[in-house]
């Protein structure tokens, strides 16, 4: 019975009833956010149709929405998708970082985040992003290696104690 109880509490996105107000609110925020994204994209498209193209505000809004969506999708593909889990920790962080950079660059062009005709601005953004990515990749790799060794020691000890 214990496992059935735990099943009800598993995750916030399953269809079961919530055991706490916190989970219900979290689920509500997720669902509400999805509707908000759909509404923004619908507004962008209707504005684009009405005015024959995107203006500054619709470009900006759609670029931010797409950047956030790309982040979520790429995060799931690189960190919560069985085939990519065979890559090392560093490989996945680097893979996520590089593909997200490409997605962000596309969004930056769409939303005109950087002034046109200034390659130095792009170079600065790329350098900063890649430097942060390199540091994060290294930090994650070291942290996960340490934790992995710690967990493996615990498992070996458990097996030894079991005789």
């Amino acid at each position, binding site marked *: 019975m214990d*496992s059935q109880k*735990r099943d009800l509490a598993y995750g916030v996105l399953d269809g079961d009833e919530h055991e706490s107000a916190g989970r219900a609110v979290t689920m509500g925020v997720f669902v509400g956010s999805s509707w908000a994204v759909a509404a923004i994209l619908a507004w962008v498209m209707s504005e684009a149709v009405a005015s024959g193209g995107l203006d500054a505000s619709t470009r900006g809004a759609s670029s931010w929405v797409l950047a956030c969506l790309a982040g979520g999708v790429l995060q799931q593909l690189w960190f919560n998708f069985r085939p990519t889990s065979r890559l090392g920790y560093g490989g996945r962080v680097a893979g996520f970082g590089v593909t997200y950079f490409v997605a962000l660059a596309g969004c930056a062009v769409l939303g005109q985040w950087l002034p046109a005709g200034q390659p130095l601005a792009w170079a600065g953004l790329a350098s900063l992003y890649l430097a942060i990515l390199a540091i994060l990749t290294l930090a994650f790799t070291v942290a996960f290696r340490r934790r992995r060794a710690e*967990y493996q020691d*615990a498992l070996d000890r*458990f097996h030894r104690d079991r005789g």
Partner: protein
Amino acid sequence: MMVRLIQREVQRGIEVTVLNAPGDQRAERLADRLRTADSKITAYVSQTGTERRVVPLASVASIRSDGDHTLVRLVDGTALHSPSRLFELEATLRQTEFVRTSRQEVVNLDNVQPIRPEFGSRLVLGLRGGGEAVVSRSYAPQVKSRIGIVG
């Protein structure tokens, strides 16, 4: 169902006989539970077949939900089918080294090698006999606690 407990001075060990009409599924399940209490599990070579194997729990790597049935993976790589549901088996495995790793699977910690942390507070357990079991975030604290990882 009638249950009789007979104590005899000369008896060595426990002997259980289940008398039932042919095809009584309740009796089959009861026998399965009794075997599990004796550190054995009953499973079939194929889901619809009748070729039955009684295997020691020590040779089971994991038990995974497969619709209304369960898939029993052994350390030699064999996969057997059990008519019992996962929660039924889990209830009888409580005093053993089996631990729930996700909604779909229980794993025998004695047959786990290696272990590694995963993003999102999950764990990945290598299983003897091949394959891996992902420990979901909900069940990771329980698995860590069982092998003595604090925090």
